């Protein structure tokens, strides 16, 4: 295992910014095509009417809200993980933090689109803003959707700051290495960074504050998302476990998303010297912990429902356990529990490939989990006469696909314009300089596990 240093770090990590191959354009066109298709689908949905989606009475939330919860879940990858790793001072975090934090920001941006996409009249979404209207009508602060609005905006603001702050020194590096227009752009972005001890100290303090502040925000965001369901008197929704269950699931899917992103970056940007198998190993262990925690929550939720034996709950329960939703349910259990526990639990499989396979399973499983929370309950709500089923139609499928492409597209673009590995943090880990780095961060080196 080699540890690149100094100038090589600069060269390796800035190379993707300065040299552009045809592959980059191909990827942008490829993912961009899907995104354009998604935008067309959304515009048609507004133009022709919401009816071109597959929703129907009484299942009024399905794919869009599933995607919403899913992407907000993915967003817990970054900020939360990177903030925790920062606070516990895990030295191995250094090459991982930025690609985690950027997942957060992009996944939040995509997730926050879905409340708009799913609105019957999206052009009136601004009514959720608590602005002083001439008729003195405020949003309904009792509504979990309004809480969502505030929670997501807070999280988006916080995580954007958390991403942008440590990018400043790296923008300065790019500024110093580039010429022409690029130099002028990065000069603005670097905000006059000179690398003085005072500036370093302020940056470190700001990062410490943000890391501490962002954790309660991240936990509360997904709890509030879970309130969208648990506040309504619907069988299998109205349960107190949803808060922690959703937060655990969010971190779980976030780690999976991060592992996939890391593997892709490592392969295509040739970052083998920076992202080592040990990073996958460590995050794989984290994935294993979260898989066990997720399994505990699901077992808990199901057992309590089964034992309580309420008629409305049991209808939904059996729908997922052995009736029409059973194939999806057991796929979810396999993907979310069996697969990651086997692959991540056995040391021999905890390789990069093993991590990626487990992560794809978890991504699929967690998407299904959200779908299975939403749809069977709405379709089997108390009165058997009004039971219903749901199947998606092209509008929903295209828009869902487009969001995954949008994530990839944003990631490709980001990696083009910003060093995807934090250069200064990596160097700080390599050459701890007491003058520049607070004592707490100086003692851990890349590759060592301090968790």
């Amino acid at each position, binding site marked *: 295992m080699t540890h690149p240093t100094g100038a090589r770090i600069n060269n390796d990590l800035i190379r993707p910014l300065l040299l552009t191959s045809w592959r980059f354009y191909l990827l942008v066109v490829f993912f961009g095509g899907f995104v354009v298709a998604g935008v067309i689908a959304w515009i048609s949905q507004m133009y022709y009417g*919401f009816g071109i989606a597959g929703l129907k009475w009484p299942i009024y939330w399905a794919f869009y809200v599933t995607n919403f919860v899913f992407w907000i879940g993915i967003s817990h990858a970054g900020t939360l993980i990177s903030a925790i790793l920062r606070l516990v001072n895990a030295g191995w975090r250094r090459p991982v933090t930025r690609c985690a934090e950027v997942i957060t920001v992009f996944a939040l941006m995509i997730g926050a689109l879905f409340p708009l996409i799913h609105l*019957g009249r999206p052009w009136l979404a601004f009514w959720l803003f608590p602005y002083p209207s001439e008729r003195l009508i405020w949003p309904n602060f009792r509504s979990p959707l309004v809480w969502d609005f505030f929670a997501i905006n807070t999280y988006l603001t916080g995580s954007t700051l958390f991403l942008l702050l440590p990018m400043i020194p790296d923008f300065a590096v790019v500024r110093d290495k580039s010429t022409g227009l690029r130099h002028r752009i990065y000069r603005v972005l670097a905000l006059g960074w000179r690398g003085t001890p005072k500036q370093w100290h302020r940056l470190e303090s700001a990062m410490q504050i943000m890391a501490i502040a962002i954790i309660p925000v991240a936990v509360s965001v997904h709890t509030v998302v879970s309130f969208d369901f648990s506040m309504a008197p619907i069988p299998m929704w109205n349960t107190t476990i949803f808060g922690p269950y959703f937060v655990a699931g969010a971190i779980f899917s976030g780690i999976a998303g991060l592992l996939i992103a890391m593997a892709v970056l490592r392969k295509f940007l040739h970052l083998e010297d920076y992202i080592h198998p040990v990073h996958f190993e460590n995050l794989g262990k984290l994935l294993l912990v979260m898989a066990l925690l997720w399994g505990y929550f699901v077992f808990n939720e199901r057992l309590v429902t089964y034992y309580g034996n309420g008629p409305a709950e049991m209808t939904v329960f059996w729908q997922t356990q052995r009736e029409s939703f059973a194939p999806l349910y057991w796929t979810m259990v396999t993907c979310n529990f069996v697969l990651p526990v086997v692959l991540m639990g056995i040391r021999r499989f905890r390789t990069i490939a093993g991590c990626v396979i487990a992560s794809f399973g978890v991504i699929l499983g967690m998407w299904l989990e959200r779908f299975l929370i939403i749809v069977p309950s709405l379709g089997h709500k108390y009165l058997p006469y009004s039971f219903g089923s749901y199947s998606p139609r092209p509008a929903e499928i295209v828009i869902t696909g487009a969001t995954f492409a949008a994530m990839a597209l944003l990631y490709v673009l980001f990696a083009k314009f910003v060093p995807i590995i934090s250069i200064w943090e990596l160097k700080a880990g390599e050459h701890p300089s007491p003058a520049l780095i607070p004592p707490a961060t100086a003692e851990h080196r890349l590759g060592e596990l301090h968790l």
Partner: protein
Amino acid sequence: MPRWGMAADLDRCNGCGACVVACHAENNISTVGAGEAARGRAKHWIRVERYWEGDFPDVRVKFRPVLCQHCDNAPCEPVCPTYASHHTEDGLNAQVYNRCIGTRYCANACPYNARFFDFFNPSWDKPLHLQLNPDVSLRMVGVVEKCTFCVQRINAARVQAKAEGRGVRDGEIQPACAQSCPSRALVFGDLDDPESEVSRLSRSPRGSKLLEDTGARPKVTYLARQA
């Protein structure tokens, strides 16, 4: 202030569906067409639920007209982010179409599935488009609509009574469903007036509320079948 409510005598309901038709006509509920209806997009502010009991040939059919129950503790109201779904002073569960942005959260929270989303702009099979009710606003695509207890009739009766310097008499207001019910299974009136027919029926030992254990405190009382 009155507190409007309804009683539905299941002994009298024969499942004819006249209430459904009358409601469509009175409230300008758009017909969505056969294809959309088969897809589950039909909107019936009142529906007659049919339940079968026993095995053939010993089958008994039960009818239950289900409409918005105008719950006192309505689950649809707190969840609406824009106050489109809110409680009026006389206990009606009102839906302000112009304020609705179409989150459909209210429809999800409703235990009775009594709320309907407009998937398209309204249209009617000819010649139904010639019989729209001028007293009821049309609903555009993307909003949620539901039974209003024929609020236009309530308001008209109230204005009339005020003009004549008296209170609204029991039985003076009839929602379209109650008016068209041939067996008089549906009775509408003021629950706070102990003398009114609806309040007398609501106190009947045969009376019960639908899904009472959800805590929604519905204002429609169902009188159990005896026959």
